[in-house]
């Protein structure tokens, strides 16, 4: 390939200006509401499917958030009686399942759907209809889970949500201990959405492997795309065992099988192994796309190229490999042999290395930059701090004897919220602020965004910081109440206050989304002066994404266009 293959900057600008005008004029003659809704339901356009995923995620975030707030109010004081034991157990089961399967997963799928084809210069994904199927399966899975609130005890009984925990440890899920059908709703709901996720992963891999723009070698794709590629492979590795385990559990519950039935020689540990074989890679499935978003936002808002593209990409691949062999660190207390404990402790420590490399690469990207502290960047920096803490408490948990004390305590609850919320969700929200202009053509309000960030940052630390202390004081997780006199009240009260501050943060987000959607500042094609292909087309992009498929020579094609005197490909 020669340099003459690169489209001239002026040409590219012309082409997307035309696209923008077409869209603007068509907005005047908008089709009737029912037709618009029908278009959304029947769509196979990757951008619309992506936005559907994101809307689904926000909807379930409201449910999961309300559940969390009730949990926090119940734990305000010792022997509180706001809710009963059964209700509380249902709340934390639904909260965990919702947030993992129906908030963060679809948000990731949404970003991937919307961005991957745009970033690699493709007109759509490889399998558009499979893609739509994946979304509808995920949504139906979530709806199935929540149907339990209406029919969990059978059509003639009342509702009862599942109360077995998001990890559904056997044999608590066996018919003897889990009466009624609410556990079946959990199994079927998460299994359906899991199949949708597998479809999503297959599609993403095929898209990235086969549909990159001319010149975009796999070593030149944006880091977000890299992360999605690794994530998708991890999904293919992790989800089928979960689905298989869920089918086995259904057979136990309804066909008299004994896989996990300890009374009949089944194994309770088998479920734990199968579940965590999914469950731990799942943590990285939720974290890697966040790393991808950070690797896009931090350079653009530092006005610098990412420090060490190759090591960010390769350390993520390492996380993919090592992350698939650490699952039993969730099981240090089940009485494994010394050698197994040693192995899983060592792999868990080892994963700190590639994770640390990335944190340092991002930090180094800041060095010498011109940091534009807009909302997306604030969330990205918040991510760096929170994820650092979550990673360090993770090192503590990988130390087996320490884990014997703090696993299943509130310390652990604090730890994984620092990783999944302070990590993944902070990054994803940064992503919302970063790509909202691309998706809608309007900017999110930066002042509200900053308010959103600071409320969330302060609320988050007040909420999850004190949990480390109540855990060290011996407070176990998943308890609907506790006895007074153990010094736990004050820490729980700080947490609850933090929870409500965070509730305010999310109200701010929703207000900002609603307000900016109607009257936000027009964004233009490239409001952040960014460098990846999605900013080359109009905002929102036309159905066909690019009028002309761009040809790429470097990792930052728009940098090359904007700086013809010093293009990236000279340095790569």
């Amino acid at each position, binding site marked *: 390939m020669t340099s003459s293959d690169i489209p001239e900057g002026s040409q590219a600008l012309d082409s997307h200006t035309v696209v923008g005008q077409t869209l603007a004029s068509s907005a005047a003659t908008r089709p009737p509401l029912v037709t618009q809704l029908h278009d959304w339901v029947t769509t196979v356009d990757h951008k619309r499917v992506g936005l559907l995923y994101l809307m689904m995620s926000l909807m379930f975030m409201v449910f999961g958030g309300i559940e969390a707030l009730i949990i926090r109010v119940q734990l305000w004081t010792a022997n509180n009686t706001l809710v*009963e*034991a059964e209700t509380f157990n249902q709340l934390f089961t639904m909260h965990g399942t919702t947030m993992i399967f129906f908030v963060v997963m679809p948000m990731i799928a949404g970003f991937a759907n919307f961005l991957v084809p745009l970033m690699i210069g493709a007109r759509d994904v490889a399998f558009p209809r499979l893609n739509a199927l994946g979304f509808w399966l995920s949504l139906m899975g979530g709806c199935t889970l929540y149907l339990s609130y209406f029919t969990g005890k059978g059509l003639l009984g009342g509702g009862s949500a599942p*109360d077995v925990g998001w990890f559904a*440890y056997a*044999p*608590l899920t066996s018919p003897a*201990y889990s009466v009624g059908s609410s556990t079946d709703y959990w199994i079927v709901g998460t299994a359906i959405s899991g199949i949708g996720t597998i479809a999503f992963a297959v599609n993403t891999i095929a898209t990235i492997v086969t549909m990159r723009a001319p010149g975009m070698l796999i070593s030149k794709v944006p880091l977000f795309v890299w992360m999605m590629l690794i994530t998708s492979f991890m999904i293919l590795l992790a989800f089928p065992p979960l689905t298989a385990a869920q089918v086995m559990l259904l057979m136990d519950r309804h066909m008299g099988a004994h896989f996990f039935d300890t009374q009949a*020689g089944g194994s*309770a540990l088998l479920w734990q192994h199968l579940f965590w074989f999914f469950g731990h890679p799942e943590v990285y499935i939720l974290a890697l796309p966040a790393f991808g978003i950070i690797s896009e936002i931090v350079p653009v808002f*530092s006005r*610098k*190229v990412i*420090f*060490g593209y190759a*090591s960010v990409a390769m350390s993520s691949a390492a996380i993919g490999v090592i992350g698939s062999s650490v699952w039993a660190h969730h099981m240090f*207390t089940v*009485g494994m042999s*010394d050698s197994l404990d*040693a192995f899983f402790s*060592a792999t868990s420590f080892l994963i*700190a*290395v590639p994770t*640390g*490399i990335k*944190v*340092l690469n991002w930090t180094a990207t*800041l*060095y*010498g*930059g*011109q*940091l534009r502290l807009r909302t997306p960047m604030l969330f990205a920096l918040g991510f*760096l*701090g929170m994820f650092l*803490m979550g990673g*360090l408490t993770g*090192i503590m948990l990988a*130390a*087996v*004897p*320490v*884990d*014997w*004390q703090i696993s*299943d305590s509130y310390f652990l609850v604090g730890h994984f919220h620092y990783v999944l919320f302070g990590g993944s969700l902070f990054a994803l929200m940064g992503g919302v602020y970063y790509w909202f202009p691309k998706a809608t053509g309007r900017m999110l309000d930066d002042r509200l965004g900053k308010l959103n960030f*600071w409320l969330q*940052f302060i609320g988050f*630390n007040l909420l999850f*910081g*004190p949990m*480390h*202390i109540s855990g*060290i*004081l*011996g407070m176990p997780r*998943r308890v*609907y*109440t506790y006895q007074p*006199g*153990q010094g736990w009240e004050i820490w729980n009260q700080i947490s609850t206050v933090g929870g409500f501050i965070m509730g305010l943060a999310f109200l701010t987000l929703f207000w900002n989304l609603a307000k900016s959607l109607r009257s936000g500042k027009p964004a233009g094609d490239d409001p952040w002066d960014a460098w990846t292909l999605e900013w080359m087309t109009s905002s929102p992009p036309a159905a066909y994404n690019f009028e002309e498929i761009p040809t790429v020579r470097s990792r930052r094609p728009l940098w090359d266009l904007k700086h013809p005197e010093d293009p990236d490909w000279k340095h790569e």
Partner: protein
Amino acid sequence: MIPRIHVIGLTLRFPSLGVTVRCAVAIAVIMVWSSLSLAQSPEFSQGNDAPDMFNPAGPNAESIQEIFWVVIGICAVILGLVGTTLIWFIAKYRERPGDNSEPPQIYGSRAIELAWTLAPLLTVTLLAVLVIATVIKLRADPPSTAAHRVRVVGHQWWWELNYPDHGFTTANELVIPVSEPDLAKPIYLQLESADVCHSFWVPRLAGKTDCIPGRTNSMWIQAGEPATYFGRCAEYCGTQHAKMLIRVDCVSQADFDKWVENQKADAVSDDSVAAGRDRFMEMACMNCHAIRGTRAAGEFGPDLTHLMSRKTICSGLALNDRENLTRWISKPDDLKKGCRMPDMRLTEPDVKLIVDYLLSLK
């Protein structure tokens, strides 16, 4: 006019007031968080009942505390280094108003990246060796001839405690002899479950080990001073997981021997409460509860042979007195909603007779 400060060749700009305040709040939150988790503040031991793992009472929990401090120390250093760099970079490289020039592009540095790959690798290798050594040490049998064995069986939602060396069973209150400086008296726990997964956790004595149906786990505890140590089930086990408490009563050897003698004996047969005993045997009570020396031999609920030697009922939930026993028997759901003991709908006189009988089981 933005104030500037020159430090060893670096020009530090002070950000605007608003940003300074916000950064200060952020740093304060981070500092408070880390210092609170790191420091052994007095709150950690507030209330005598706090099952505080940083206030260990035996060698097992002490070893864990030692390695916990090592790990916390290493993590604090990393947090300090990376966190400071992060905050420093954010403060230093903030956008200069009006300056739209692109900063110099730095694509990476093989030497630096190699350094920050190898340094963490060395650190975690060191940690892993330390950790694995501690695991082996804690799993190994402590050299002592004075060991006792107790079989701990988790039930929904109480603990069955069986002393196989002495041939009796009790519940929820694990009585152990105190270790003397020159004679360790470790207690070997054989952990099992009768139904779902539970986890035995008394933070001041040791870490937790799960009780898994179909499996036998083991651990050991040892306490250096006579006291009551509080713990609980740490693995979610259903409705009343929160109220599955355990107490470890550490007593002097003499008291322990006396206690064992009493436990070994059959139940007191006091004819003044014969009516209550008859009621107990006629009703369904004996299907689930055992009272040695009588026909009652149920195994589903706690052994009641020496019920009154225990301080609490309902796995540590309520004091073991007439009032609570009456409440518990007449309406179990009042104390522990969803518990496995059914409401037998006994008449008030029947309840009183049965409680009279139970109160005689010293």
